[in-house]
């Protein structure tokens, strides 16, 4: 049977089975197998896709033809989805309590795989809605208002996309990506030559804005990101690794599609601004703003889940930034960062899932000193921290490096400045995470915490290993990404990546780091022997210290920053949307009471008015 069909059907069938047979061990096994199947096929098809092969699938359904294709670009995204789906399933094997969650988690996996592999808009929209619905159901279980916010914003985006799809269909007569791309290209040349094309200027801008809304909501771009913190926090944390790692990439993929289909047309219609094409520059700035704002907000959070949620939003901002830069280098950086974000964020969320599972706490003030109790989780958490902070030689640094090079080479200095700021902020909040959770004093109710269960650890191990591998050998990823563009955008071998204006030899960095640590270690060992002391036995300027004295700063760790930013923090898009929603509801109530007021005389008047209108219509 066709690989694509198996990849799409396996997760959802496994999910339905797991939900129907709600038996403890069985549903976990079914779920994990269902999630593993796409991964197996992804690995299997790597070689053929790398060499330029394509796998197609066309399914006629209800008058439409749903078509899918697996080639290098879609394979890349599908690989991210399959990988993270598998680790999510492993995580959920430990943290998930009922079949409901398996059903919807796997349904969303099918949804996102379908989105990535779709080749025309009907299947794209169908799987997009499926994915949104399934992830929404995951959040609904935990918190109604968070899920409503998510669903409403997502649905607004999805409907915006539907209108855009309909407009495209009306003008081009087809849903296929390739057909629309061709049409747009011809239309663009017409615009370039000054001849009126099928799409006028306002129509093109409308399409652009509609798609921007649709994909921006999913990716969590500012100012449409408000659903993300609540939705990512209020759901099963193992699922969040998939949610924030992969579903946001669906939005990113949408942007890539926007570029590939309408890029040229938008370029000719919207023109340039300061040497960059306007539409791309807008996307880059949206990305930059997302990075800065989300990272600042992440620094100020008191709840672990919210911190990582904002962090996720910020990281996807990086990806958007890379896409917005518009050059091939930017795209490669963006795609690489999509991958590294997925693997380090996925790892982070699994760590958080382990923490919440074992301790039951979610706020920083309740944690402390867990490095001794959960050492393996700590080690993986540290790898994730280093990757997110962009420390060489891990995966996060490689992708950030390419983004820097891309942004600066494309002469977008301010955007690159935003990347710098974002990195600094990332550093700040991960250290906060490390400090509050793993170090310092342990609160008394955490004394019996044990290490995380095995499936979670397996998932973490897989992702952690990939972080290291892609960090030391970033060439593996760039070689694959080069095939998308057909030529060597980034040269070099497995360990070195060379962008033409800069060079980074990851292996050399890794070796030198190890060498440096060895030298330092030698120096250390040369010194005297050490004596271990209690955490409390510490310098206190002469004050006596007892066990229950609080020695760690766990609350409002970054209060000075909050004070420095107090002016800006008053502006909140979240509150704006809530206010708008309330207005709509109040308006609805007023409308209903005015129209359907129960008074039959007024109803009769309605009839009279309509009759009058009907009568007068002709004149």
């Amino acid at each position, binding site marked *: 049977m066709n690989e694509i069909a198996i990849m799409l059907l396996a997760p959802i069938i496994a999910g339905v089975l797991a939900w129907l047979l709600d038996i403890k061990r069985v549903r976990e096994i079914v779920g994990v197998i269902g999630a593993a199947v796409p991964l197996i096929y992804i690995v299997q098809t790597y070689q053929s896709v790398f060499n330029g092969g394509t796998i197609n699938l066309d399914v006629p359904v*209800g008058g439409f033809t749903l078509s899918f294709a697996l080639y290098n670009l879609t394979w890349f995204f599908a690989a991210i989805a399959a990988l993270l789906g598998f680790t999510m399933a492993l995580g959920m094997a430990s943290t998930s309590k009922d079949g409901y969650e398996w059903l919807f988690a796997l349904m969303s996996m099918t949804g996102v795989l379908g989105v990535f592999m779709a080749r025309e808009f009907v299947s794209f929209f169908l799987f997009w809605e499926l994915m949104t619905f399934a992830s929404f159901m995951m959040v609904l279980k935990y918190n109604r208002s968070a899920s409503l916010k998510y669903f*409403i914003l997502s649905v607004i985006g999805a409907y915006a996309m*539907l209108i855009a799809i*309909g407009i495209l269909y009306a003008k081009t007569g087809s849903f296929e990506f390739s057909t629309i791309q061709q049409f747009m290209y011809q239309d663009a040349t017409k615009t370039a030559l000054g001849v009126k094309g099928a799409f006028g200027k306002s129509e093109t801008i409308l399409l652009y804005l509609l798609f921007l809304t649709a994909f921006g909501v999913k990716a969590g771009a500012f100012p449409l990101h408000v659903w993300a913190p609540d939705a990512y926090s209020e759901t099963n944390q193992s699922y969040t690794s998939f949610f924030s790692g992969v579903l946001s990439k669906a939005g990113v993929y949408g942007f890539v599609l926007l570029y590939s289909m309408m890029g040229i047309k938008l370029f000719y219609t919207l023109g340039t601004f300061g040497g960059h094409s306007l539409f791309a520059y807008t996307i880059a700035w949206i990305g930059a703003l997302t990075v800065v704002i989300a990272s600042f907000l992440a620094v100020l959070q008191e709840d672990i889940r919210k911190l990582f949620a904002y962090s996720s939003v910020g990281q996807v901002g990086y990806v958007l930034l890379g896409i917005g830069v518009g050059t091939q280098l930017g795209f490669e950086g963006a795609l690489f960062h999509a991958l590294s974000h997925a693997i380090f964020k996925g790892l982070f969320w699994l760590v958080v899932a382990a923490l919440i599972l074992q301790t039951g706490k979610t706020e920083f003030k309740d944690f402390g000193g867990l490095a001794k109790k959960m050492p393996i989780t700590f080690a993986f958490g540290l790898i994730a921290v280093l990757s997110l902070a962009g420390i060489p030689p891990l995966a996060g640094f490689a992708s950030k490096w390419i983004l820097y090079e891309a942004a600066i080479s494309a002469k977008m200095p301010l955007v690159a400045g935003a990347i710098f700021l974002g990195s600094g902020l990332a550093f700040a909040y991960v250290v906060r995470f490390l400090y509050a959770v793993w170090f310092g004093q342990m609160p008394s109710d955490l004394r019996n915490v044990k290490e995380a269960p095995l499936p979670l650890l397996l998932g973490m191990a897989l992702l952690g290993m990939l972080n290291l591998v892609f960090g030391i050998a970033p060439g593996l990823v760039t070689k694959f990404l080069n095939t998308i563009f057909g030529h060597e955008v980034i040269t070099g071998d497995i360990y070195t990546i060379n962008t033409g204006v800069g060079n980074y030899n990851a292996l050399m960095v890794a070796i030198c780091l190890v060498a440096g640590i060895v030298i330092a270690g030698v120096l250390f060992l040369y010194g005297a022997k050490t004596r271990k002391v209690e955490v409390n036995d510490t310098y206190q300027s002469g004050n006596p210290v007892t066990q229950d004295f609080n020695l760690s700063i766990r609350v409002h760790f970054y209060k000075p920053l909050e004070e420095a930013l107090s002016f800006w923090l008053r502006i909140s898009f979240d509150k704006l949307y809530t206010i708008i929603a309330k207005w709509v509801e109040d308006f609805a109530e007023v409308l209903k009471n005015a129209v*359907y007021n129960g008074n*039959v005389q007024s109803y009769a008047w309605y009839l009279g008015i309509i009759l009058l209108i009907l*009568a007068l219509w*002709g004149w």
Partner: protein
Amino acid sequence: MSQYASLLIALPLISAFFVPIIKRISRDAIMPYLSLITLIQTGVAAWAFKEVYTTGKPIIIMAGGFKPPVGINLYIGHFAALFILIVALASFIMAVFSRKAISIEPKDKYAMLFLLLMLGATGMIATGDIFNLFVFMEITSISAYALTGYNKTGEASEASMKYIILGGIGSSFFLIGVALLYGSLGTLNLAQIAQLAGNMNATVAQAALALIIFGLAVEAEIFPLNAWAPDAYQGAPHPITAMFSAFVVKAALYAMARILYITSSASSWSNVLRLLIVLGTLTVIVGEMSALRQKNVKRMLAYSSIAQVGLIAVGFALGTQAGVNASVFHMFNHAIVKALLFLAAGYVAVELGGTELEKFEGLGRKMPLTAFSITVGAVSIIGIPLFNVFWSKLRLILAALSANYAWIAALVLGASVVEAVYYIRLIHLMWFKGEGEKMEENFVLGGIMVLLVAAIIIIGVYPGPVWNIVQKAGSDLFNVANYVKNVPLLGVSP
């Protein structure tokens, strides 16, 4: 052989008048008798459906053997065959439900009115003559008026009164419109009207069309003529509400669409279309908005139903084949979903004593199958893929956009967002709030709900066959020349 299709009209009519005799025989036999009759009706309708769709030719029944336009003819084309089947099926399900849901006497009157309601709707769909349409419309309306007030509560009586007043006004104007039409063209036969429509005087055409559409719009629940609907839906007995939503309003919509397309060669046609689009969109918007803060689930479903009907009206009013196909598909899907929803909500009312929102708290624990059915119904109305309404909504939006009505599509989608909000609140309430013990759920009703759910999901995953059928039904409506060709007109000139 195909003349047996006239049973579709004859059977309910005769059976209705037989009810007092059955009552004489045994009081308890009334409800089973009702189920039996509706079952037979379903059987005949299924046979007619098979006939029409396998041979591709419509069944024409000439009353009294007189050829039209001298006699009245029944035209059971693709659309009529499909929907008569739906009417019969829905009636059967509701008849079964009535056994549990109706406990107020006099049940024999209920059974009679039930059969007449079914008859009226079937007749409206099957007829080929405009005055005959009026007759059946009146049968439907009057049965509906009476059934609305069946529960004998103050609320129901008031609702019934409102319905009578508004429906009466609508019917009167409809009649005036028909009179104008007759006066202008000299014929009452739909096929011949189609032939001759272009000859009408422009003013007369405008007035006649306006009045006819107006009259039908009251019954078809178009804003703002649908003000009677929320009260009527809430006050009526649960099976009756389901029937209202599933096919009574659809019959009126069909009639409106049929007359609209028949008179498409009249001069003021595009104006009427445009007005209908506006009204339809407003129906959707006002309907969804009104449902937002409802505290009573049945009323909420009523508003939602009104909104969906608005959507169907918009589809018809687009004036394109794609729009008509999409609307027919949506009529089909909506009938199934709303039948399920009202059935489930009514069952909850019967078991738990009311349809206020509080009664639905924790339903997931108390009556899981019912709650599941409501969830499936709600999720499918929102337009989630893997459920049937996704396809029809998609088609509708695409049709609207192809016809250059982008802003209509935007408004409708906006209203859909609102719809999502209140349905989600209901789902959340049912499953994630409240406590309860598991109750016994009626086996038969549970079985029906499961079947409907299965239908929703199967059509959602595999819409191909249904889409083919619907396309044929749509072209039946849209393709007026074909319609005229199929009717054996005598060629009597006005």
